[in-house]
C-alpha cells in the first residue's frame, strides 16, 4: 500500500527561483531563507519518496479565466512549464504518475468532489519553484509528480474548509492505493502577502506563525476562516493558505510531528514559511 511519509510547506515566489538562477542563496538577503532547504533535502535523500503530490495555484499561465477550475488535478505523463512573461527560466518537464492520478480522481468523484481533470497542462512557478528548491540541479526529474491546483486568483475561491477537505480526500485516496509507494505531499505558496492595490506590501508575521502552529496542532481552527478573513489578516494573497490546508488534510487526522520550521520575512513582498511535518503512523 502507498504511504504518506511527510508533508512539506514552502513558498513558491518567483524571486526565490530567480535567486537560485543567479546563485544568490548565500547573500545576506537570502541566507536565512535558504538555510532551511539543506536539512529538508537531507530528509528527502534519506526517505527517498517515489511520488510528490504538489498543491499549487496557477498564476495566469494555464488556468486562464476562459475556463477556470476551482480544483484541477494533473493526470499527464509529463508537465511542461513555460515563459510566464517576466523572466523566470523554464526548466525541463516534470514527470507525472498517471496511475495514482486517476486513482485519486476516481476517489474524489466517488466522494462528491468535482475536479477538473488535466491530461495536458503546463505548470507554472507555483509548481516549478518548489521542485527546484527541494530537488535542485534537475534532480527533481527523479521523482514523479502529481500537480494539483487550487483557484487562488478569482473570487469565489474554495473556502479554506473545502480545500482542507479536498486534501483530506486526496490523502485517503493515496492511503488506499494498492501499490507500494512512498508519497510526500507539498503545500506551496503563502504566507502573508498582498501584491495588488494601495494595501500592497502588508505582512503579518504573527499571523503567519499562528497559522503554522495551528496547521500542525489544530487545522480545524484555520478552517473557520473565510477567505476575506485571511485577506484582512495577511493580505490578498494570504488565500494561498489553501494549499497548506490541502497538504495538512492529506496527512490525516492525527497531529503530525513538526520536524522543521523556518520563517523569514520579507522575501520579495512575502512572509515566507517552510515546514516539514511527519505524520504519526
Amino acid at each position, binding site marked *: 500500500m502507498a504511504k504518506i511519509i511527510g508533508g512539506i510547506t514552502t513558498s513558491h515566489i518567483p524571486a526565490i527561483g530567480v535567486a537560485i538562477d543567479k546563485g544568490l542563496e548565500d547573500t545576506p538577503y537570502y541566507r536565512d531563507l535558504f538555510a*532551511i532547504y539543506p536539512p529538508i533535502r537531507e530528509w528527502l535523500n534519506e526517505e527517498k519518496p517515489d511520488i510528490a503530490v504538489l498543491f499549487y495555484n496557477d498564476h495566469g499561465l494555464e488556468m486562464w*479565466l476562459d475556463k477556470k477550475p476551482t480544483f484541477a488535478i494533473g493526470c499527464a505523463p509529463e508537465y511542461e512549464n513555460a*515563459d510566464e512573461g517576466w523572466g523566470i527560466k523554464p526548466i525541463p518537464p516534470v514527470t507525472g504518475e498517471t496511475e495514482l492520478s486517476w486513482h485519486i480522481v476516481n476517489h474524489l468523484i466517488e466522494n462528491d468532489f468535482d475536479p477538473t481533470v488535466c491530461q495536458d497542462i503546463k505548470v507554472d512557478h507555483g509548481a516549478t519553484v518548489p521542485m527546484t528548491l527541494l530537488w535542485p540541479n534537475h534532480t527533481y526529474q527523479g521523482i514523479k509528480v502529481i500537480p494539483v491546483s487550487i483557484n487562488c486568483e478569482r473570487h469565489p475561491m474554495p473556502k479554506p474548509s473545502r480545500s482542507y477537505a479536498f486534501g483530506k480526500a486526496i490523502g485517503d485516496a493515496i492511503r488506499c492505493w494498492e501499490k507500494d509507494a512512498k508519497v510526500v505531499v507539498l503545500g506551496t505558496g503563502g504566507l502573508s502577502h498582498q501584491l495588488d492595490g494601495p494595501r500592497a*506590501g502588508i505582512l503579518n508575521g504573527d499571523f503567519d*506563525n499562528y497559522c503554522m502552529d495551528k496547521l500542525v496542532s489544530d487545522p480545524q481552527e484555520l478552517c473557520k476562516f473565510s477567505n476575506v478573513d485571511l485577506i484582512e489578516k495577511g493580505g490578498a494573497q494570504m488565500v494561498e493558505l489553501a494549499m497548506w490546508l490541502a497538504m495538512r488534510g492529506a496527512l490525516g487526522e492525527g497531529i503530525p510531528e513538526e520536524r522543521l520550521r523556518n520563517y523569514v520575512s520579507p522575501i520579495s513582498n512575502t512572509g515566507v514559511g517552510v515546514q516539514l511535518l511527519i505524520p504519526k503512523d
Partner: protein
Amino acid sequence: MTDYKMRPVEGTIHFDGAQATKGFNFNKMCFSFNNEDARQAFLADPEAYMEKFKLSEEFKQALRDKDLNKLLELGGSIYYMAKLAGIFGWNMQVIGGMQSGRTTEEFQAYLDSQGRGKTTNG
C-alpha cells in the same frame, strides 16, 4: 437568502465575478504576454495591440498612464497584470510602490519594517 457580497477590505479590490466580467478583455491581453512575440508586438505598437483586444478607452488611458490602481479598479487581475512587469522592467517592489504611493525604496523600507526581526529558523 445568502448575501454573497464580499466584506470590503480597505485598499483592496476583490477580484470577483463582477470585476472579472469588466476586465475580461484587458486580462486576456495581459494573458497573451506569456508569449515573447506578443510582448514585442505590444512594445512595437501599444495602441494597435490594445485595439486588437478591444480595450475600452478607460483601460487604454489607464495603461498609458501606468495607473495600476485604476487598472485594478476597472477589472484588472494582478496575476495577469504582473506580466506587464516583464514588459516595463518592473519588479514586485516597484509595482508595490506604484500602487501604495511610495518610491521603491520607501516600499522596501515598509516591507522591512514589518518583517525583519521576525525570522524563526531551525
